[in-house]
């Protein structure tokens, strides 16, 4: 766990670049720092391994003030990944990976074994690569080495400073996926700096958006997409960014929250009145516990005796969807079953909302407003 307590940083000319930030990075989480250039994200990162010292405030790792110990020792226990230029060109791949274990004076045998193990972890053949030099590797391979070099001495915390920004989009995607998988396996605390919102959304457990040395919003990717802080964050993530991540849009986000409902004992006549006053053409039939029993449309009612009960005429074979299903699943259901009405229920099978063709149109039209 890494805690920032009222951390400030200003330079000699008095310019304050970090203006008193407070936050906690939980153990085992991939924490993304993002913002436009000059927002202080890299400075924040470098304060964790003391490449930059804060002017005031405290940074604690697992409850211990990092300024209390030796910075060299601190850095050897924190993994550090920078852009691909960070590999030492005069050293072989093996020597590069072993550097921190070497500084920590591990015996040679143990260093070699660890290097082999790490190369295999990222699917690179140790025999082939261990004696090669960084300039013989592609950008993607170099950055894989950069990542496993940070893992070599098995640190709990790893700092990554825009590690994938210099890569082409295809390789970048691939490495992001690999990092994600690696993180599932190893469960390190990773602090990841980027300026790429797609990367942040893809990798981050939580995202911390910074601007001018302040934290503007710190939340899960889902929350940031759904409820971006007004102004800056909205603009920064792009107003309709959520539409490019449809998995974050759930049925409950787009449904009508208070659909028109009626008790099964109501008569057709009463139901028609209710529909009229609500300007709808269908009604959901629920029992006293909000459990969905059926659905009745104006078409069903038009030819019926007005005194019949709803339970007698309603359609009971209703297709429903759960409130946490994604928008793409919802669209698929409605398309495949050819239905225009989709009641939404929760885990307890209680009715919580309704999605109709026209409500969908309203939602989509907001995209372009």
């Amino acid at each position, binding site marked *: 766990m890494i805690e920032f307590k009222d951390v400030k940083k200003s330079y000699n000319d008095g310019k304050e670049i970090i203006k008193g930030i407070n936050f906690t990075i939980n153990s085992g989480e991939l924490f993304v720092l993002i913002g436009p250039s000059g927002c202080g994200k890299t400075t924040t990162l*470098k304060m964790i*391994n003391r*490449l930059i010292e804060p002017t005031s405030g405290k940074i604690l790792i697992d409850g211990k003030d990092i300024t209390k110990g030796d910075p*060299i*020792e*601190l*850095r*050897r*226990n924190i993994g*550090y990944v*920078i*852009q691909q*230029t*960070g*590999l*030492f*060109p*005069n*050293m*072989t791949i093996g020597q590069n990976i072993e*550097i*921190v274990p070497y*500084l920590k004076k591990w015996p040679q045998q143990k260093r070699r074994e660890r290097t082999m193990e790490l190369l295999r972890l990222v699917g690179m053949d140790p025999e082939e690569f261990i004696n090669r*030099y*960084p*300039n013989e590797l592609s950008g993607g391979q170099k950055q894989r080495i950069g990542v496993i*070099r940070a893992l070599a001495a098995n640190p709990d915390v790893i*700092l990554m400073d825009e590690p994938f920004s210099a890569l082409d989009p295809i390789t970048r995607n691939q490495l992001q996926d690999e990092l994600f998988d690696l993180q599932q396996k190893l469960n390190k605390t990773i602090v990841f700096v980027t300026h790429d919102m797609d990367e942040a959304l893809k990798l981050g457990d939580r995202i911390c958006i910074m601007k001018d040395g302040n934290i503007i919003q710190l939340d899960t990717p889902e929350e940031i997409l759904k409820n971006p802080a007004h102004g800056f964050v909205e603009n920064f993530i792009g107003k309709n960014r959520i539409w490019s991540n449809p998995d974050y849009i759930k049925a409950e986000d787009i449904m009508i929250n208070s659909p028109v409902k009626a008790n099964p004992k109501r008569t057709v006549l009463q139901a028609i009145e209710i529909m009229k006053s609500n300007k709808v053409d269908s009604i959901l039939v629920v029992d006293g516990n909000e459990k969905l029993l059926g659905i009745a449309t104006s078409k069903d009612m038009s030819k019926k005796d007005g005194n019949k009960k709803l339970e007698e005429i309603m359609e009971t074979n209703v297709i429903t969807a759960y409130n946490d299903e994604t928008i793409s699943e919802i669209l698929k259901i409605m398309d495949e079953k050819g239905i225009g009405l989709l009641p939404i229920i929760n885990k307890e099978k209680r009715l919580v909302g309704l999605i109709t063709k026209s409500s969908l149109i309203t939602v989509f039209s907001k995209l372009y407003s």
Partner: protein
Amino acid sequence: MSDFINFFLSRSNQIGNLTLQHIELTIVAVIAAIVIGVPIGIIITRFRRLSKYIIGLANVVQAIPSLALMGFLIPLFGIGSTPAIVMVFLYSLLPIIKNTFTGITNIDSEILEAGRGMGMTNSQLLRLIELPLSLPVIMAGIRIAAVTAVGLMTIAAFIGAGGLGYMIFTGIQMYNTQMVLAGAIPAAILALIIDFIIEKIEIKVTPKGIRK
């Protein structure tokens, strides 16, 4: 031409001795310049504000005509090989200091930050990264210094230090062109050989990963 060859052969013993003496004087001066110059070059990368003054000073020394510099040195070191070695040493300092400084300061700052961020101490940074990466540039400076030194050392004969300059100066005084050539040609060849050898060393010390 055959006259010259005859002259050369008749004096081959003396020329051989003078050449050895020349090599000895040059090597002593250049090695001294390496031993002093490289550490100075490293130190001024740590104290950047000093670099301007130190390199400026070395530049000034370089600008003094060699004969004049020797004139200054005679009162301090007398005549013989010592002032000659000191003079060549002083001339060799500039390329060595300058190249050491440039070699180290031109290393990509991200690489250094990676090293520091991984927990290297300053001396580990120097030993594991800065020196290996700047060695080709430092060697290029040493090469320039050594080749220049061979030529400069011919002046040493002026103050009785010996070396191939002895043949050249004696030849000039005696209007004996053959004698001048018998000193100048071996000196030129010596310079080329030293250039060749140091070039080989330069390639050898360049880390494999940064060879072109």
